[in-house]
């Protein structure tokens, strides 16, 4: 295709408008004249996580012509490939086999309305929930395997409806969707970074893309223009890894907070869409988890390990050897308490969580954490004090005091619920903690059919669609576990029917 060049003359002033003035070095200079397209496709998908992979396969199956997926990283799957592989599906076969017959999309929406705290979009949640079984079928159809007989109730859901992939990772889904797409003729390219959109007034007609890009160096690779005849689908995920942006929209998100997301979750395509008029909503609604460990990357094992730690153990500050919070309080309360632990220069003094080893020696949460050196088995409080540089006498005094509170089933210090707390005698499992940023509820405003809304006209930008975490305003204040995978897969199906309908309308 190298020799094939398409030329397009843009009407003077039709493109980018005033926005380009703030984006030096972008397409403005060229768009006054002719654009030499290096290739042309029918549908172009940006990003290769659950949303992008689902959209690409479903658009291909709609028979709308060629589909090209652009991924900036060196692997397919984005953050989805490393996620936990949870999927909320009301009326899934395992749930029905468990005798749970009273679940429905409406039941799921009810739960999401509670966690959305008035900021959610009920109609959008309904659009997604009503496609849950279709999303499940898409998985089964492409060869995704789920854990046998596994269907449980996860946080904030009123029923057991979450299934999990065979290996407990979203990679079980992304690899299958990708391989199905390859088989059915979807074209995928790694290391393609979107530099800009090419607009013809209120319509997107292609992208400027840096090919052979090596994350994160923007000097690598070279720029080409790819024309998209029918649609551009943004499926580029969230921006939880964009430290500058997340701190601008939520100043409480300290730069010392690591992130559960893959490194590529930096959101520059979201910003490019905004620069071309796409309306951002709820950008400051960013979910953090207080269960992160600084001794592992990504989401890791810490969350699971701490489900023992918060209940049966204690959290201790390394600064003074004392407890400092109600370990069973909610995410926000705990995050704020944890982040107060700092050295004089402001750097994190990662608190420790410890619990008794013997009762949990064979528990997978413990064996994996110790194997991967994000938690340690230590025999005595002296060993704990030495390893984490805690004043030993203070630590011993705190644990002794804590044990009297456990026996009394009353915590006068922080009023923690002590029903599950154990007297700490050692040997201990010890890990370090610090909150991590997890999910962006905010992003681009779309209509129910995934069309991106222009904030100036409040009308869809022609041929531009967005699905998955890049969109905003759907979940509201907080997203429930196992609903993002569902959203991405379901909206990949929805967007394919939208594009087909829009093309019919255009004829």
């Amino acid at each position: 295709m190298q020799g094939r060049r398409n030329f397009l003359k843009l009407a003077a002033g039709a493109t980018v408008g005033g926005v380009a003035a703030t984006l030096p070095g972008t397409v403005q200079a060229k768009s006054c004249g002719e654009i030499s397209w290096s290739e042309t496709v029918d549908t172009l998908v940006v990003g290769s996580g659950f949303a992008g992979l689902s959209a690409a396969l479903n658009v291909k199956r709609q028979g709308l012509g060629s589909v090209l997926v652009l991924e900036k990283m060196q692997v397919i799957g984005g953050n989805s490939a490393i996620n936990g592989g949870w999927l909320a599906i009301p009326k899934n076969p395992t749930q029905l086999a468990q005798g749970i017959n009273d679940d429905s999309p409406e039941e799921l929406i009810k739960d999401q309305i509670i966690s959305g705290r008035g900021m959610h979009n009920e109609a959008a949640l309904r659009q997604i929930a009503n496609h849950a079984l279709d999303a499940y079928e898409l998985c089964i159809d492409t060869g995704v395997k789920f854990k046998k007989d596994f269907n449980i109730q996860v946080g904030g859901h009123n029923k057991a409806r979450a299934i999990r992939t065979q290996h407990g990772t979203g990679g079980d889904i992304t690899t299958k969707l990708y391989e199905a797409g390859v088989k059915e003729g979807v074209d995928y390219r790694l290391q393609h970074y979107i530099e800009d959109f090419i607009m013809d007034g209120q319509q997107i007609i292609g992208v400027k893309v840096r090919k052979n890009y090596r994350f994160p160096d923007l000097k690598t690779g070279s720029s080409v223009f790819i024309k998209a005849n029918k649609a551009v689908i943004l499926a580029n995920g969230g921006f939880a890894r964009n430290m500058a942006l997340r701190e601008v929209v939520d100043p409480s998100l300290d730069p010392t907070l690591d992130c559960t997301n893959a490194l590529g979750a930096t959101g520059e395509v979201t910003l490019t869409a905004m620069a071309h008029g796409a309306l951002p909503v709820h950008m400051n609604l960013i979910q953090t988890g207080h269960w992160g460990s600084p001794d592992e990357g990504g989401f890791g094992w810490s969350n699971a390990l701490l489900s023992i730690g918060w209940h049966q153990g204690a959290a201790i500050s390394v600064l003074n050897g004392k407890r400092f919070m109600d370990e069973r309080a909610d995410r926000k309360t705990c995050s704020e308490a944890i982040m107060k632990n700092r050295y004089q220069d402001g750097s994190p003094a990662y608190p420790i969580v410890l619990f008794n080893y013997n009762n949990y020696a064979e528990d997978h949460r413990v064996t994996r954490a110790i194997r991967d050196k994000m938690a340690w088995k230590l025999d005595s409080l002296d060993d704990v004090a030495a390893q984490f540089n805690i004043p030993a006498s203070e630590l011993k005094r705190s644990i002794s005091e804590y044990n009297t509170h456990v026996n009394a089933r009353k915590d006068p210090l922080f009023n923690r619920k002590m029903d599950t707390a154990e007297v700490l005698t050692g040997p201990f499992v010890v890990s370090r903690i610090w909150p991590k940023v997890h999910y962006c509820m905010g992003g681009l405003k779309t209509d129910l059919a995934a069309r991106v809304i222009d904030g100036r006209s409040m009308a869809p930008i022609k041929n531009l669609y967005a699905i998955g975490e890049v969109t905003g305003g759907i979940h509201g204040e907080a997203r429930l576990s196992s609903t993002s995978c569902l959203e991405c897969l379901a909206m990949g199906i929805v967007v394919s029917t939208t594009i087909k309908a829009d093309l019919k309308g255009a004829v």
Partner: protein
Amino acid sequence: MNKLLLTALLSFVVSQGAVAGELVKMKGSTKGRVNHEFIYQDGCQSCHQGSGKKNATDAACVECHGDINSIDVDETKLAIPEADPHKSLHYNQGASCLACHGEHEKKAPVCAECHRTWFEEM
């Protein structure tokens, strides 16, 4: 030409019993892998799409080594059986060679972003 490369490579593997080469000074200040030494004699273009100024892609790797699922990994060296980077639960066929391998420098594989104790720089 390809056949020549393949023959040279095979004879190297058989004689040395190694798959990933040591990183040594190759040309001027450029470092490279000893098992690729014979390629350097041809200049940079065999990997760099005709010009040393252009970034290499997977094509050159695949030409000699085959695709990711056809390259065996020594299972005795894996921290746990699931840690086979060529049959990754997260990426499987959807990973570029370059995600984990560097020719001119030591590089940690993409897996090490999360699994920090399973994989070392290569």
